[in-house]
């Protein structure tokens, strides 16, 4: 069966096909039947003819018989003449007649027979008439009878009968011949018929079989094949439908099937597309940001399309580019192009064309789709624009492993439209919420700013109002002034008259005045001489005792060594002598110490360091100290603190201890039996809350007459006591001096023989100003304090520092203007806004001139001027008055060098500066510049030429050291990289040899953190060469030239204390990146006898711990770059050997949580920044 080329038959419709098959069969059958019928007809004809022939023969024989019969009958009659014999004749004639008639009909159709028949008849007739009729006639007449018998014997009639017989014979023969031919025909027809029937049967069978086969082939098989397809079609398999090309019903059916298949495939594809699209979109619906959206989109798309990799690009409206925003299945780095313009590349192109572009085949060298196992080039690459409502939101690129199927394409088409819409709305909503958030934030900030503006406006408004107020006041004053001016003029006129009278008197007065003035000056000079002398005395004493101590020190050590006799080569006497030597030396030393203290107190050189002192702690310390002595002496020694006494004092703890131990030593010295009590109780010092600390003894007491002299230097109740009891007799003077220094008073109560009570009353809070008032006034004896002789605080220490210009001006803005003018001229400026500040400053800071405002908030400028003039240290300083009023005369009277009336202009200020001696203000400073490069030295010298300094240059480290050794310098500028002493050796050596002046490092290269750490030991001023370094170098130099307190400088080192015995020799690791802290800390800690190891960060700290085993405690800064404090502590703790290493966290953070975090990290304790040294020391004591 040919599917390819349907035969004509196969193209026929089934009805036609059936018609054809059965028609042919029918035709064959009817043809056969017709032939059989024809043969049958022929056979009947043939049979009829044979019957006919048989009939003819029968008749002929009958006729012949009849003829014979007639003859026989006749003969019988003739012979017998019996009439009876005539009867057969008669019958024969009739019979003959009948038979011949019948025969005549039968042979009429055969002319030859009929001719014979006719002759028979004729012969018969002749016989009958000629023969039969005469003989009958002859016989009847017996006469004639003989004639009839003769005729009969002679055979007259016989010839005729014979002819008839012959003829009949002939006829029968003829008929027989006919019969033979006729049965031959019949036989032929019969066999024909037989073969016809057989043929017909065969034909029927064959055509039938053929028809069945044909129908089966053309209809049955296709139908069953199609039928077989039905279930597969139903299951939706994609099947090949045969017979499509056929034009018959099978074809139609097949086509219908095909259509069915196609439509069901179509349906399923549509279903698939719809389902996948819905899935992708469903996933996209959950995306609420551009990022997740694009990510999900490309992932899902690659999923459903079976893409090997994918990229999504987002159209950026603003920059008009497509920006890469998500990828699928690609290594990060493989995205080479992140942005495309419109129409650029396939990506841009697909955006322009707004249709999906499929690139196939993919050019070689294109990105490969990689998996863990291998890589393959994509079969095709798709570029699909995400277009919705005519707007393109982005483009996706997908590398396909297989070419895209229609369904996939359809899906892609559908998805890109819907997802474009979705993306559009997602980014719009993201954008809106972002904008919303942003605008919310912005509104907040705006509001805050507005508020701050409002606040500033408010400030401005109030400032304006204040100004306006002041203006009105001024106006009012002016008005009043004008009024009083009138008045004054009138008075002046009146005065003019009285004046002349007065003038005379004035002359006299002036003379007196001059005399007085001379006397006053004389007195003043004497007073100041005295002052100087006493100052010199104290100074001398201070110096002397210092000078004495040094040799004494060695003497003490040596004598002690002798007395210990460790070599055993001295005899007892010698040892005793050595001991006496040592003891005397000790007494001498304590005397010198006392003298030193006293002279310090008197010379006002004793500093006071205020701190919070716990009363009971300090008293108990004393109890501990003196208890052994009490035991030795058999005395009862108690400390009592009244409950109402304050617990804490703000005072100088060291001094307090010194005072009390002096009093206690005294008490022990003069008491032989009984008890000594140290008592603290609440007291009052004027209106100020105070504490009274008393030392009560049951000793020898002081006679009433000597009571008021005990506090004077070198006094003891009895000069003999000195010998008996030892001691310098300076103790009480020192006590009194120090107590005054601390703002307190000393009292004594005593009864000879009964004992004494010394009481010091200290304010709970020592007034700060007291530090300046250092002269020990006469101590208040019970009889009451002597009145202070000098109302003005004594000038005390001479002011220090480089001479500066003091600007006293309460209007800050104007003060700044003045200061700016002055600083621009290179002057050192200090500013005070109140009179008191001004005076305080003048006491501390050396001045070369003063610009003084008169209208000050506290005390008037005039008073300031007077006081400045009254102080010997400031009397010589030129003062220039700047005032709103006009009292230049008063100014001159008080000694001002000039008067400037406000408002002032720049020129006037400059002139005023000139007048206060700005021109020759500070002295020239000396700088040492150590740098091996002459050119760079020249640069620096040029740079600093504007500074008021002379620069000594040294071209090498050795040179520099020589200079340092030989001369004094105010500052040092050093290049750290000196050829002859690399590695900062110069600084190390220089600082070893002498105290270094302030140092500025000027480095031509960058420094490593380690290097700068090391340099920080010498200075905080490090300048790295660069475009702006000259400026900074000048700044730094300027800074120390003018001795401005530097923020980078460690805080003033506290006075060395008796180091806690428990801390000396301990090693502390300070971990901090803050240089200031590290150096300040290490300095104070070293002073307390600790060894300090530094580390700049956590890693270094760990390295230090690793490297050395002698670290007793760690101080850990929390906020460090890199590894912070918490982390460092945790790491330290994680090592077994450091589990118990004490760590104190140092933190700038004050919040609860932060501190807890320190402890959690493993710190033992914490200490807040800025560090309180005492707190730190206590912590160290606790933990170290």
């Amino acid at each position, binding site marked *: 069966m040919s599917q390819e080329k349907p035969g004509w038959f196969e193209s026929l419709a089934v009805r036609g096909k059936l018609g054809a098959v059965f028609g042919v069969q029918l035709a064959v059958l009817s043809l056969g039947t017709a032939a059989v019928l024809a043969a049958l007809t022929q056979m009947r004809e043939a049979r009829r003819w044979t019957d006919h022939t048989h009939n003819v023969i029968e008749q002929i024989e009958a006729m012949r018989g009849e003829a014979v019969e007639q003859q026989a009958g006749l003969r019988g009659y003739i012979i017998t003449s019996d009439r009876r014999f005539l009867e057969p004749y008669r019958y024969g004639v009739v019979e003959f007649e009948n038979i011949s008639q019948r025969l005549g009909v039968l042979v009429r159709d055969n002319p030859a027979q009929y001719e014979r028949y006719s002759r028979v008849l004729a012969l018969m007739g002749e016989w009958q008439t000629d023969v039969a009729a005469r003989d009958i006639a002859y016989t009847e007449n017996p006469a004639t009878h003989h004639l009839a018998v003769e005729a009969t014997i002679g055979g007259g009639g016989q010839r005729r009968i014979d002819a008839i017989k012959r003829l009949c014979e002939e006829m029968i023969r003829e008929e027989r011949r006919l019969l033979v031919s006729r049965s031959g025909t019949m036989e032929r027809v019969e066999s024909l018929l037989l073969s016809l029937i057989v043929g017909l049967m065969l034909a029927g069978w064959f055509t039938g079989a053929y028809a069945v086969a044909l129908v089966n082939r053309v209809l049955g098989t296709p139908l069953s094949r199609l039928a077989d397809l039905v279930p597969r079609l139903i299951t939706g398999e994609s099947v090949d439908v045969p017979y499509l090309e056929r034009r018959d019903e099978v074809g139609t059916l097949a086509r219908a099937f095909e259509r069915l298949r196609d439509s069901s495939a179509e349906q399923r594809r549509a279903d698939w597309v719809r389902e996948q699209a819905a899935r992708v979109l469903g996933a996209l619906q959950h995306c609420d940001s*551009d990022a997740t959206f694009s990510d999900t989109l490309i992932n899902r798309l690659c999923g459903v399309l079976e893409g090997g990799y994918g990229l999504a690009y987002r159209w950026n409206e603003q920059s008009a580019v497509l920006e890469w925003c998500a990828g699928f299945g690609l290594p990060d780095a493989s995205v080479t192009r992140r942005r495309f313009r419109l129409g650029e590349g396939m990506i841009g192109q697909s955006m322009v064309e707004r249709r999906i572009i499929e690139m196939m085949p993919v050019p070689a060298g294109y990105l490969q789709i990689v998996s863990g196992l291998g890589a393959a080039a994509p079969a095709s690459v798709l570029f699909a624009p995400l277009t919705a409502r005519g707007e393109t939101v982005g483009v996706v690129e997908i590398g396909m492993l297989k070419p895209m199927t229609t369904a996939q394409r359809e899906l892609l088409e559908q998805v890109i439209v819907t997802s474009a819409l979705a993306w559009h709305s997602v980014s719009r909503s993201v954008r809106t919420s972002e904008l919303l958030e942003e605008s919310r934030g912005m509104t907040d900030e705006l509001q805050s700013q507005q508020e701050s503006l409002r606040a500033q406006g408010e400030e401005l408004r109030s400032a304006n109002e204040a100004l306006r107020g002041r203006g009105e006041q001024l106006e009012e004053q002016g008005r009043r002034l004008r009024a009083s001016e009138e008045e004054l003029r009138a008075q002046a006129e009146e005065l003019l008259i009285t004046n002349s009278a007065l003038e005379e008197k004035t002359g006299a007065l002036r003379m007196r005045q001059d005399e007085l003035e001379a006397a006053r000056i004389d007195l003043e000079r004497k007073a100041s001489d005295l002052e100087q002398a006493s100052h010199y005395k104290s100074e001398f004493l201070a110096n002397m005792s210092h000078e004495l101590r040094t040799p004494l020190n060695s003497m003490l050590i040596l004598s002690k060594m002798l007395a210990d006799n460790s070599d055993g080569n001295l005899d007892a006497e010698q040892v005793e002598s050595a001991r006496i030597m040592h003891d005397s030396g000790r007494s001498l030393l304590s005397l010198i110490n006392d003298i030193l203290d006293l002279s310090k107190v008197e010379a006002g050189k004793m500093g006071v360091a205020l701190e919070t002192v716990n009363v009971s702690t300090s008293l108990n310390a004393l109890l501990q100290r003196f208890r052994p002595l009490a035991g030795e002496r058999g005395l009862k020694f108690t400390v009592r603190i009244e409950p109402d006494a304050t617990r804490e004092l703000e005072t100088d703890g060291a001094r307090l201890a010194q005072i009390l131990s002096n009093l206690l030593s005294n008490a022990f010295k003069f008491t032989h039996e009984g008890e000594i009590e140290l008592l603290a109780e609440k007291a009052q010092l004027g209106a100020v809350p105070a504490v009274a600390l008393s030392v009560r003894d049951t000793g020898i007491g002081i006679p009433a007459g000597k009571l008021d002299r005990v506090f004077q230097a070198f006094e003891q109740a009895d000069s003999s006591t000195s010998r008996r009891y030892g001691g310098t007799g300076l103790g009480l003077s020192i006590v009194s001096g120090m107590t005054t220094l601390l703002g307190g008073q000393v009292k004594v109560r005593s009864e000879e023989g009964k004992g004494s009570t010394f009481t010091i009353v200290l304010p709970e809070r020592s007034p700060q100003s007291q530090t300046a008032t250092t002269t020990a006034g006469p101590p208040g004896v019970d009889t009451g304090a002597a009145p202070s002789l000098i109302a003005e605080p004594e000038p005390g220490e001479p002011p220090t520092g480089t001479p500066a210009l003091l600007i006293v001006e309460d209007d800050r803005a104007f003060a700044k203007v003045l200061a700016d003018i002055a600083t621009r001229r290179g002057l*050192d400026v200090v500013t005070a806004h109140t009179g008191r500040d001004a005076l305080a400053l003048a006491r501390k800071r050396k001045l070369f001139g003063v610009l003084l405002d008169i209208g000050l908030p506290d005390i008037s400028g005039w008073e300031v001027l007077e006081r400045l003039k009254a102080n010997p240290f400031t009397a010589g300083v030129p003062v220039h008055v700047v005032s709103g009023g006009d009292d230049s005369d008063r100014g001159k009277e008080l000694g001002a060098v000039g008067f400037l009336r406000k408002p002032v202009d720049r020129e006037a200020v400059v002139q005023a500066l000139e007048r206060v001696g700005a021109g020759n203000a500070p002295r020239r400073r000396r700088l040492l510049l150590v740098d091996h490069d002459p050119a760079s030295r020249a640069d620096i010298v040029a740079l600093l030429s504007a500074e008021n300094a002379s620069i000594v240059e040294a071209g090498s480290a050795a040179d520099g050291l020589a200079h340092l050794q030989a001369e004094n310098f105010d500052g040092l500028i050093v290049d750290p990289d000196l050829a002859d002493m690399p590695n900062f050796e110069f600084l190390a050596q220089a600082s070893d040899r002498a105290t270094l002046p302030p140092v500025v490092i000027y480095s031509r290269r960058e420094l490593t953190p380690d290097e700068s750490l090391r340099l920080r030991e010498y200075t905080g001023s490090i300048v790295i060469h660069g475009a702006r370094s000259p400026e900074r170098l000048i700044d730094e130099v300027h800074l120390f030239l003018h001795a401005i307190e530097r923020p980078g400088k460690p805080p003033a080192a506290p006075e060395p204390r008796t180091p806690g015995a428990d801390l000396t020799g301990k090693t502390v690791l300070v971990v901090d990146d*803050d240089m200031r802290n590290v150096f300040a800390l290490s300095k104070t800690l070293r002073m307390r006898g600790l060894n300090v190891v530094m580390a700049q960060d956590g890693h270094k700290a760990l390295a230090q711990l690793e490297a050395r085993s002698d670290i007793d405690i760690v101080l850990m800064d929390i906020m460090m770059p890199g590894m912070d404090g918490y982390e460092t502590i945790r790491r330290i703790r994680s090592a077994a050997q450091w589990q118990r290493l004490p760590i104190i966290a140092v933190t700038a953070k004050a919040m609860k949580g932060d501190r807890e975090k320190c402890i959690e990290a493993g710190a033992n304790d914490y200490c807040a920044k800025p560090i309180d040294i005492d707190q730190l020391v206590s912590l160290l004591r606790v933990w170290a």
Partner: protein
Amino acid sequence: MHTSDRHDIEIDLFRRALMLRHGYDFTGYAPASFKRRVLALQAAVQAPTVSRLTERLLHEDGFVRTVIGRLSVPVSEMFRDPSVFRALREDVMPVLATWPQINIWQAGCAHGEEVYSLAIVLRECGLYERAHIFATDFSEEALARAEEGIYPLHEARAYSDNYLRAGGTGSLSDWYVARYNRIKLDESLRKRVTFARHNLVSDGVFGEMQLIVCRNVLIYFGDDLQERALGLFRDSLVHGGFLCLGNRESLAYSAMADDFERLSEETAIYRRGIRARRTI
């Protein structure tokens, strides 16, 4: 009782709870601004009343983080106020170059935009390796974001614009990668940055700084608090170090004014006592 009175009481209680329970002290903040922030917080977490906030603050452990996150206004931009960054780049960086080590404190770093901006400027000036940036904020939430350094893509354009106007020498995109619709700043910019929580209200000085950048933070503070913060800055700065404030902020009303010199009228960049200290 007026609602506003009630509000004030509630806000006061809330403030105290924050202080007592978590140690955050907002007493010194500008009251109106603080009130607004609290009400905004209330709206954001959908609390019916401020008291409800107080309750959650007291009992819910993690809540304080959200609260602080909401109370702070972490609005910022990279290279915000380009003229300031231009001044930093052109006038300040060359001076910073003269110190062997450059410590920079960025106080109130919000989401870190300025930190990265500074880092970029330092990198482009070749100073980064010598620098340490301490980026602090009192909001942990903000700090976490700052450490990520991820910003919305659509901002990038404005940032780039700012960057160029601030005198950037390359392209801002050299410093970030764009992914999805975010930009992520280069990891290497974070190398020398320390992010730490630090509250300007209560915490102290932690190091010696050459440059302090604290912009748009003081505007939220009352006068005393401003004074405190400025004191911290002054005490942290080395002699000749720089203080950069927001454009709306100024030292003019502060007692600290004398310790500083203003670099120019246009930007609020000050230099610590370079010529003279006038008050002692």
